[in-house]
């Protein structure tokens, strides 16, 4: 089995402030981390490797410093890492990103499962995973919290608003992973020592045979028109006092509203 995990390095959102004039993120001095949902994707791949054997390749598109995130992934137990980095990749929206990742994954080849986080905590679009599946013409499932492989089929459970759904997919396939897959493990000492020494190849646009017009800003139809803080959701009321009384008040209120 060969598993590919797509990782994104993101600013730690707790530390991010918004420039009140431009409405853009102020990234200076903010620590970079692996997108937390991608850590769940990596954990899913590590679990799959423990159960079914195989090899994990982690890829990330980003600036040279994204190498750090890939080294961290090695410390968790990934076998190989590839950084996709090229000036022409910069300014990519989800369409251009999924194109770049798809080109790289085609070059890696012979994969069985691609794991993505359900979304990144900076853009929050949750689009790259499904777009990538489309580009590679793969069956896919989003919001997956449980994985099994049986008779060469993938059996997954995915979160829905009102329950969960069990799906059977043929391999190869792409999955986007949610928190319920289980808390990420702690890196191992051997993993950390390996991460320190490992050579991480950097693939450019040329290496992945990418068309310039589909990359980065020029390949991105998305235009950011305006960034604003969402308006407050209206009035709120906080009940204080004894729990029984609060529950009673809340009940009466709901009864009023719902009729």
């Amino acid at each position, binding site marked *: 089995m060969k598993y590919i995990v797509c990782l994104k390095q993101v600013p730690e959102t707790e530390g991010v402030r918004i420039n009140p004039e431009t409405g853009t993120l102020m990234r200076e001095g903010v620590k970079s981390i692996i997108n937390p949902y991608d850590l769940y994707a990596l954990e899913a791949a590590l679990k799959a490797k423990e159960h079914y054997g195989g090899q994990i390749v982690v890829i990330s598109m980003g600036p040279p410093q994204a190498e750090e995130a890939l080294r961290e992934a090695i410390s968790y137990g990934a076998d190989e890492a590839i950084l996709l980095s090229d000036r022409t990749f910069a300014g990519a929206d989800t369409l251009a990103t999924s194109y770049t990742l798809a080109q790289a994954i085609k070059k890696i080849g012979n994969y069985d499962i691609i794991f993505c986080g359900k979304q990144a905590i900076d853009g929050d679009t949750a689009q790259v995973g499904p777009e990538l599946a489309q580009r590679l013409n793969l069956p896919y499932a989003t919001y997956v919290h449980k994985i099994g492989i049986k008779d060469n089929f993938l059996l997954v459970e995915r979160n829905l608003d009102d329950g969960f759904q069990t799906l059977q997919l043929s391999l190869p396939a792409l999955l986007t992973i949610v928190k319920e897959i289980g*808390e990420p*493990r*702690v*890196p*191992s*000492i*051997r993993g*950390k*020592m390996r991460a*320190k020494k490992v050579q991480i190849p950097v693939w450019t646009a040329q290496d992945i045979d990418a068309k310039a017009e589909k990359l980065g800003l020029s390949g991105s139809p998305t235009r950011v028109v305006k960034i604003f803080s969402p308006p407050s959701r209206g009035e709120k009321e906080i009940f204080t006092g004894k729990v029984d009384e609060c529950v009673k008040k809340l009940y009466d209120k709901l009864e009023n509203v719902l009729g």
Partner: protein
Amino acid sequence: MIYPLTEEQQMIKEVARRIAEEKIVPQRAELDEKEEFPREILKEMARSDLFGISIPEEYGGLGFGSFENCLAVEQIAWGCAGVATSFAASGLGAYPILLFGNEDQKQTYLPQIASGEKLAAFGLTEANAGSDAGGIQTTAVKDGDSYILNGTKQWITNAGEADIYTIIALTDKKRGPRGASAFIVEKGDPGFSFGKKEKKMGIRASTTGELVFEDCRIPKERLLGKEGMGFIIALRTLDYARPGVGALAVGLAQAALDEAVKFAKQRKQFGQAIIGFQAVGHILADIATQLEAARALTYAVCKYIDTKPRDFSKYAAMVKLFASDMAMKVTTDALQVLGGHGYMKDYPVEKMMRDAKILQIYEGTNQIQRNVIAQILNKEYGKAK
């Protein structure tokens, strides 16, 4: 204080700290309350390579020494002394094999212990053999290609949870301590079972129980070293393990200091944070000072052990004695800083105080440590004349 650590030592410390923060602290109160063995946490530690730190690379370990092992034990104990005890006890059970095992025994058992796939335990204490280890009554009688063990070991950490046990038993009753030998016994050996599981005051996430041998037949190849070497093996094992108790005490005391300072900064009485009162500040200052002294001694002795000196019994005893007395005092004082809150289970400090007590008792009571130190002093000064 910042101790200069190599990059690898720093990694070991970081991995152990993350396990303590992310996997142990959120669960420690429940494990304590339910007296539950931390199987999942130990698995996590195994996956992170912590069980192999001081086992040589040729036997599947990382090939580091006492110091690196203590860095890990300290951080795990910062999270929970019960989990740290379960972890350190596997190392204790491995030392006799590591120090006195033949090549076959090392090849068979050490890789399983290093990977954490199997836990080890050490069995010396009996109902009539505590501080006086010479009082052991468990026997091992040679019978053809086997030894047959009979007797009961008491208060054994990891009893029933471990797969590999190193046991001290008498092969020659007439010779007293010189008639003791060390054996490897495996869970599942015929005639080997587990008796009473103890209910304890502290370190309740660790399991303590009886090992029962009833005509337990083991192949003669399980003898460690030679017949009659049992006590030498036991004493040497304890020499190696005692600095681990020191590290455990340091980690536990650090956790108590962290809680006490955090509380004293946010707790307001008489219109101010209580850390501003000299009476509280001085307690914290004493805790921090004693803690650093114990840490310095622990690190220094571990590093000395890693130079492979012929004899370090005195220093191993000093670390165990000093650090565990420190931890008992420090956790008691830290609880005092929290006042009534500290006595309640809503805060972790009462658990820390309960956990600290055993450190003055197990792996040789602190009175025995003083005996060891005094006897060696007597010998050293005798020679100098």
